[in-house]
């Protein structure tokens, strides 16, 4: 039996910023026409070739095969080409080169609730969305009750979707998609939205789907989900396929070679002016990030549990900026945000309107994270709008240490937290009276104080 999906030397080229703007305005085209006519008349050569200079290869020479029943996870940082690949597979856009052979009915879910119309009711949108995703009206009808039950929206069926909360909207959208029965299901990052409980429900539904012998292509930043759900994994980096193996291998590779590939691995200071992790359409205002521990000692990527950490960020502000918020986000390698430190959270602010280059330090007395690798993202917000965001600005490894002072380094869970245990004195005691056992020996001192 031939593979259900065959991808051969697939490439997709997009025009880049300037080139694109040039192509797409009618005035520019007319001007270009005049210019080239002038060049013909005057015998001038056109300045520079438009060839590859103004283009970006979003997907470059990617080949792989997927067999029926494979559950394939595709991982990579933002801009690695995952979404473009899915768009080609779902026929939304054509490849520039190469080809794809599909041998089964495909449904793709690049967004939750695609085509929902705000003015239609939940009931009406279930039909519209279902048919749009490839079901027939009868299939939707047959599954209608199941869909409604899955979304837990029985009471709001005849309410216009525009009155739904975003959570309800996502639930309805996923509920419809979850009841599709294609041979190939393509899912892009849609689980990043919605509350935790519902996310779990969706993941459950997806793994059910995979176990039913159907083929799933799944793009996610959630490494835990990829590892749990998928058997196979692909890693994309800068449009190229860099690894095709088991899901575990892909996650390992992503974690060690891609996500933590930061120039700051062995240094405490990174220049972020041209950081590859800067999100698209962001202004390059964040310039530098550096890490220190107590007493200005540089932190070179390693930090014991509970140690103090100072994060210094240098960034540029436009003239007379009254309202800015510089943020440092701590994420684990599953892409989960652990916590965010924001200058706007500072109760005793000593700054107001500022211009030009700034250097701010975030002082964390004790970084209470369990051992493992973390990444720091930096964001700059001006007047409530995000103007700069650098992902993977620096990597940080928290190493084991005797945080609780008991010789048992904590290493499970997400964080460590100061806590105390004591005997409440209401249980049965051995030998002595319960009241006496509530002694001082039960109290412990915390390692944190010793640092």
């Amino acid at each position, binding site marked *: 039996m031939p593979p259900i999906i065959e991808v051969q030397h697939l490439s997709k080229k997009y025009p880049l910023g300037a080139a694109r703007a040039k192509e797409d305005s009618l005035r520019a085209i007319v001007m270009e026409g005049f210019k080239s006519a002038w060049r013909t008349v005057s015998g001038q050569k056109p300045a520079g070739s438009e060839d590859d200079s103004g283009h970006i290869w979003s997907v470059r020479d990617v080949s792989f095969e997927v067999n029926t029943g494979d559950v394939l996870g595709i991982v990579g940082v933002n801009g690695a080409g995952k979404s473009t690949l899915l768009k080609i597979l779902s*026929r939304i856009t054509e490849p520039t080169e190469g080809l794809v052979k599909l041998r089964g009915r495909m449904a793709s879910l*690049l967004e939750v609730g695609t*085509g929902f119309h705000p003015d*239609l009711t939940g009931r009406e949108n279930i039909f519209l969305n279902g048919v749009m995703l490839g079901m027939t009206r009868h299939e939707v009808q047959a599954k209608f009750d199941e869909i409604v039950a899955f979304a837990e929206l029985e009471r709001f069926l005849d309410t216009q979707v525009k009155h739904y909360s975003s959570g309800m909207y996502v639930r309805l959208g996923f509920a419809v998609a979850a009841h599709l029965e294609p041979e190939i299901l393509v899912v892009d990052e849609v689980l990043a939205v919605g509350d935790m409980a519902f996310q779990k429900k969706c993941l459950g539904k997806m793994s059910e789907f995979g176990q039913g012998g159907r083929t799933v292509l799944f793009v996610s930043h959630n490494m835990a989900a990829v590892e749990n759900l998928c058997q196979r994994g692909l890693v994309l980096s800068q449009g190229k396929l860099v690894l095709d193996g088991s899901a575990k291998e892909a996650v390992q590779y992503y974690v060690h070679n891609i996500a933590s590939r930061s120039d700051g691995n062995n240094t405490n200071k990174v220049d972020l002016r041209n950081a590859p992790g800067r999100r698209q359409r962001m202004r390059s205002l964040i310039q530098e990030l550096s890490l220190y521990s107590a007493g200005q000692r540089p932190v070179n990527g390693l930090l014991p549990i509970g140690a103090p950490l100072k994060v210094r960020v240098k960034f540029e502000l436009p003239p007379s900026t009254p309202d800015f918020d510089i943020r440092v986000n701590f994420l684990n390698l599953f892409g989960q945000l652990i916590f965010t430190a924001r200058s706007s959270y500072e109760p005793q602010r000593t700054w107001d309107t500022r211009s030009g280059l700034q250097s701010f330090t975030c002082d964390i007395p004790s970084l209470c994270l369990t051992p493992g690798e973390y990444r720091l993202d930096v964001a700059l917000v001006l007047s409530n709008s995000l103007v700069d965001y650098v992902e993977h600005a620096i990597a940080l490894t928290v190493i084991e240490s005797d945080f609780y002072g008991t010789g048992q380094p904590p290493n499970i869970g997400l964080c460590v937290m100061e806590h105390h245990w004591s005997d409440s004195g209401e249980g049965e005691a051995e030998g002595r009276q319960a009241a006496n056992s509530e002694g001082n020996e039960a109290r412990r001192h915390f390692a944190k104080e010793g640092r």
Partner: protein
Amino acid sequence: MATTYKPIELVLRPHKGWQAIDVGEIWATRELFNFLVWRDVKVRYKQTLLGGLWAVLQPLLAMLIFTVFFNRLAGIGTDGPPYPLFAYTGLVLWTFFSNSISMASNSLVGNQVLVSKVYFPRVFIPLASIGALLLDLLVSMLLLIVLMFWYHWHVTAALIWFPLYVIGTILSASGLGLILSGLNVRFRDVKYAVPFLIQMGLFVSPVIYPLRYVPARFRLLMGINPMAGMITGFRASVIGGAMDWPLVGVSFATCAVLFVGGLYLFRRMERRFADII
């Protein structure tokens, strides 16, 4: 368990040049088309006070204004039928045509998510917006019947030909709608040009004035405007009056060219929609 391998194979590869429309695919997914038409019908008059009444108000008000200004004040006469009836007959098709063009040309841009996040034959989007207007056309034709009773105007055997002109109108509106909607994805200039084109169109179509106001030597040229022929023919078949076969013939040819050309042009433009919308 027997492997139920179906030999259907879909190959996705880059395309260049002209391609025919995939009729098989459109037939297979026609249910979605019906849903999109239904959606556009349901949504169109949402949150309006008068709702579906707009379908008749538009041509009716235009008829009143035309009667006052062009008939009473400017003295434009007809070749028989009362002027209001004459104007309304033209307006039935013209209103449908102009609404179709303006709705369809904005349809793709107004449904960006559908273009960039899900696949189905893209022709459905502009065509569904026109399909939804068929209901308005029907309603305004019912009012035409009422008007004919009001004026005690009798129909002739020529009436059997009227569906031809309605179909011609639908075809040309679809063709133009497809072309303009596709162009609008790339050049938002279309959005500003369309209202102007529609205004111009009203003057080069015999909606306000009968054909005898147009010198005979310009009639064939006028036929290049598909609505010139469709309105002339529709009027002649429904309320009688001047008929100009050469003009109507040219218009039918334009309708066919617009429709087929529109499908091919759209197919050619559609490949880049998701990338540039």
